[in-house]
Structures are given as structure tokens and as C-alpha cells.
């Protein structure tokens, strides 16, 4: 019996995306399917290049097609097309070329937001995505140090800023415009203007993900960002101890109040592995963020260890995801980035099912 495209598609209907919980065919992931005699070729177009189960799905697809009688050769190409969640009039006007905007937030300061932001952005970029980092912590911009940016961005006559390109990321920070010994001492309206400028006044180009490193707390920058654009969803970073988690819940409450989705919680400084004896020590306790995630029904994205190399990497501008990708710390960041990308895809899917508010006045 000759193999037909129908046979192949029927077989592929049994392969499910575990995150999106639908089969590859109804998701529209199968592209350019050709059948010539026993030779089958197709593309699987995922919703993110950082898909954590990419290889598993590819092998499952290969197995079900190989099981069809008459198939002699299979060629599968994995591609991705990140879908846009930042839609609507405001998004189209301000950031027409950005598909997803993901603020990294915390309640308390000092929990490692900037380190997490930088490494997540790098992990996403390494997977093949087009990624930008917007350092919205105008008071204490750390992204230039952590990413080792020494160039200054270009500003054209219309005051539009070309972001600095570093390690495959497009980077924008208040730190580029200030001397280290200077301070930003601003009231709300100036912060609002800066957020607006960083979104609409920066030539970001086509981006799959814009990671926004927020200042701590629930203030002007967070509010301005959530008012200006329909953000994809926020990531909450917390250390495991109660004092940080209690405040992290306030950040969650803020996003909930602003009807901004929460993509998940990351537990940073989750545990310490002694480099001398290898013994694990839960300096700040451990697992607290996971418990809160479960209680609030928010995805838990993973744990990042407290490790001297992460601190050194951040201080020297050589992030671990780049310089030591096989280290446990870098792997932890990469896993969190993959789970985050999966959550963005899920949100994108849900967005297609529930269209945004239509304003006809």
C-alpha cells in the first residue's frame, strides 16, 4: 500500500505536545509535508526554539511515522515560530515588532532578579530565539555589569536609541547614560516617561522575547509597564526564606490586580553546594517558593543554586550560561528558561482562545 500524506497526518495526530496538551497536527505544527514513494519529509514548527521537549516530540513523531507500512525514509526538520502575545492597539503602536514582553519581578531587592534576567535571556538566545533585555531598574541598573557591556548605545537625531548588542542580546539600560557615581533621583512621571522611551523609543527590531529586569517592589515602573502594554506575563524571583516569599506574594498580588498573567516563580539561592565537601546546605531554607507556587496555582519554573561562580560571573560580566554552559548552575538557568518559554507558548495558545478586549467606542 502506498503511503499518503493522510496516513502520515493521521499517525502524527497521536503525538501530543505535553505542554499545550494537543496533538501536533491540530496545533498546526506540521509543515511542508511531502511523501514520495516511501520517503516522508516534514517540518515540525514549534512555538519556541527553547522547547524543553523538542527532542522527545521529534523522536515520537519519527517513531509513529516509521511504524506506517511502506515508509522507508523519514526526514524531520525542527523549526520554530514564536507567536505574538503582545497584541492590541497599544502593543501595535508602541512595540509592533516585539512578540512577548516578560518582566522579571520580585517583592524584595537583592534576590537576584538581574542575574536571573541576564541568564534567562542568554539561555533563550542560545536556543535560537531573538531576545532583548530591558533593564528597567533605573535606580540600580546592574545589567550592563552582569552582561559585561562596555559600549554605549547610539542615539539618533529623533532621540531614538539603538540598543547595544552583546552576546546575541539587544540590551538597553539606564546605566548606559549614567556615570557610576551618579544617581537617578526621580518622581513617578519621569519613571513613566523612561519606561515609555525604553519601549517605544528604542529600535528593538524583531524580538521573540523582551526580558524586562524590574526594580524591586510594586511601584511606578511596574505600574507604568502594565498600563502601557499588555505584557505576556511576569516571572517572580524569590529566595526561599519567609521574609522574601511574603513580599513576593505582594508582587504577585499586584500583577493579579493589573490582570497581568504570572508565568511562574523562580527560587533563587535555593541551596548551597559546598565546593570543598560537596555537602548541600539550605542556607535560606529551601522549597518555599515551590510551596507558594502550588498554593497559588502558579507554575514553578525551577531552583537556582547559591554558588560562588554565579556571583563571580555576574560581577565580571561573563554570565555562566555563556562561559560555563555545562556547570550545574548554567544548566539550572537553562531549564528555567525552557520552562518559561513553554509557559509563554501556553499563554499564547490561551490568548488565541480568549481574544482580547475589543474597544469600539
Amino acid at each position: 500500500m502506498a503511503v499518503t500524506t493522510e496516513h502520515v497526518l493521521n499517525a502524527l495526530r497521536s503525538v501530543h505536545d505535553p505542554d499545550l496538551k494537543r496533538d501536533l497536527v491540530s496545533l498546526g505544527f506540521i509543515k511542508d509535508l511531502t511523501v514520495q514513494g516511501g520517503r516522508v519529509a516534514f517540518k515540525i514548527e514549534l512555538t519556541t526554539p527553547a522547547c524543553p521537549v523538542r527532542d522527545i516530540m521529534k523522536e515520537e513523531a519519527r517513531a509513529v511515522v516509521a511504524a506506517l507500512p511502506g515508509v522507508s525514509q523519514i526526514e524531520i526538520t525542527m523549526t520554530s515560530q514564536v507567536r505574538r502575545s503582545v497584541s492590541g492597539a497599544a502593543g501595535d503602536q508602541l512595540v509592533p515588532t516585539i512578540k512577548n514582553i516578560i518582566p522579571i519581578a520580585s517583592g524584595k531587592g537583592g534576590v537576584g532578579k538581574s542575574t536571573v534576567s541576564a541568564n534567562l535571556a542568554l539561555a533563550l538566545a542560545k536556543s535560537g530565539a531573538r531576545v532583548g533585555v530591558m533593564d528597567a531598574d533605573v535606580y540600580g541598573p546592574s545589567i550592563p555589569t552582569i552582561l559585561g557591556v562596555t559600549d554605549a548605545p547610539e542615539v539618533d537625531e529623533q532621540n531614538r536609541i539603538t540598543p547595544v548588542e552583546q552576546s546575541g542580546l539587544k540590551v538597553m539600560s539606564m546605566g548606559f547614560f549614567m556615570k557610576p557615581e551618579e544617581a537617578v533621583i526621580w518622581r513617578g512621571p519621569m519613571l513613566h516617561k523612561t519606561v515609555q522611551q525604553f519601549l517605544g523609543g528604542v529600535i528593538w527590531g524583531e524580538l521573540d522575547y523582551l526580558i524586562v529586569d524590574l526594580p524591586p517592589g510594586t511601584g511606578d515602573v511596574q505600574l507604568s509597564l502594565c498600563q502601557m502594554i499588555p505584557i505576556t506575563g511576569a516571572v517572580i524571583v524569590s529566595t526561599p526564606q519567609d521574609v522574601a516569599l511574603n513580599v513576593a506574594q505582594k508582587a504577585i498580588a499586584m500583577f493579579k490586580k493589573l490582570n497581568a498573567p504570572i508565568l511562574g516563580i523562580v527560587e533563587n539561592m535555593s541551596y548551597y553546594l559546598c565546593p570543598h565537601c560537596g555537602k548541600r546546605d539550605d542556607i535560606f531554607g529551601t522549597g518555599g517558593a515551590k510551596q507558594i507556587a502550588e498554593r497559588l496555582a502558579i507554575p514553578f519554573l525551577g531552583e537556582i543554586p547559591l554558588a560562588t561562580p554565579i556571583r563571580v560571573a555576574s560581577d565580571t560580566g561573563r554570565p555562566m550560561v555563556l562561559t560555563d554552559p555545562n556547570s550545574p548552575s548554567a544548566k539550572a538557568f537553562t531549564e528555567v528558561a525552557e520552562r518559561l518559554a513553554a509557559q509563554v507558548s501556553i499563554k499564547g495558545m490561551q490568548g488565541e482562545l480568549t481574544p482580547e478586549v475589543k474597544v469600539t467606542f
Partner: protein
Amino acid sequence: MMAEMIKSLVPVEIGRANEYDLKITWQDGHVSVYPARELRLKCPCAGCVDELTGVVRVIGTSVPQDVHPLKIHLVGRYAISIDWSDSHRTGIYAFDLLRKLCPCCQAGHGCGCAKGSTC
């Protein structure tokens, strides 16, 4: 999911009930109609309502009888702002506030909602 808003608090469509008045169709199917001037007098901005005490500061007699929205903008995912014909435009009407202000829900008739409930 905790992080998502409940259906009765998210609009599907925000449009006109007539030339001046605002109509909101909510995700739970409920339809609210807001007489323009009443909505203007409920403006939640800091100029119209004292931020700390909640005392209403907007003076009714200073607002024209025929005040009406000129343009409505979405604010993020949680609210709208309205450019009014009397040049006022600082209020941000959050969806949950709008549902609370729904005239028929407030009156407790027409929609089967209890008086004062947010449905």
C-alpha cells in the same frame, strides 16, 4: 488559575449603547450600560476623589449635562481610560470598578445579581 481574573471582571467588548452612553459586554455574558454623565461623576482619579479619604471632590454642577466620552483607550490588561468631552482624562477605570458600578447590578434588578454584589 489564581493569576487570572474571573470572567465577570473581564470585558469582551467595550462600545456604545447610544450616542453618548457606554456599553460593556462581559465574559460571563452580562451586559452593562453606563449613562455617560454618571460614569464621568464616578471618575476615580485623584482630582475627583481624595486618594486617602475617598471623599468625592468632583463638583457635579461643574460637569456639563451632556458630558460624554470622546475616545476610550485600553490600559494594559486591567482597565480603560476615557477622554471626556469636558477635557477630563486622568481617570483609570479598572474593570473590577466598572463591574461594581454596573447600574443594574447596583440596583439589584434586571440581571439577577444581588444588590451591591460584584456578580
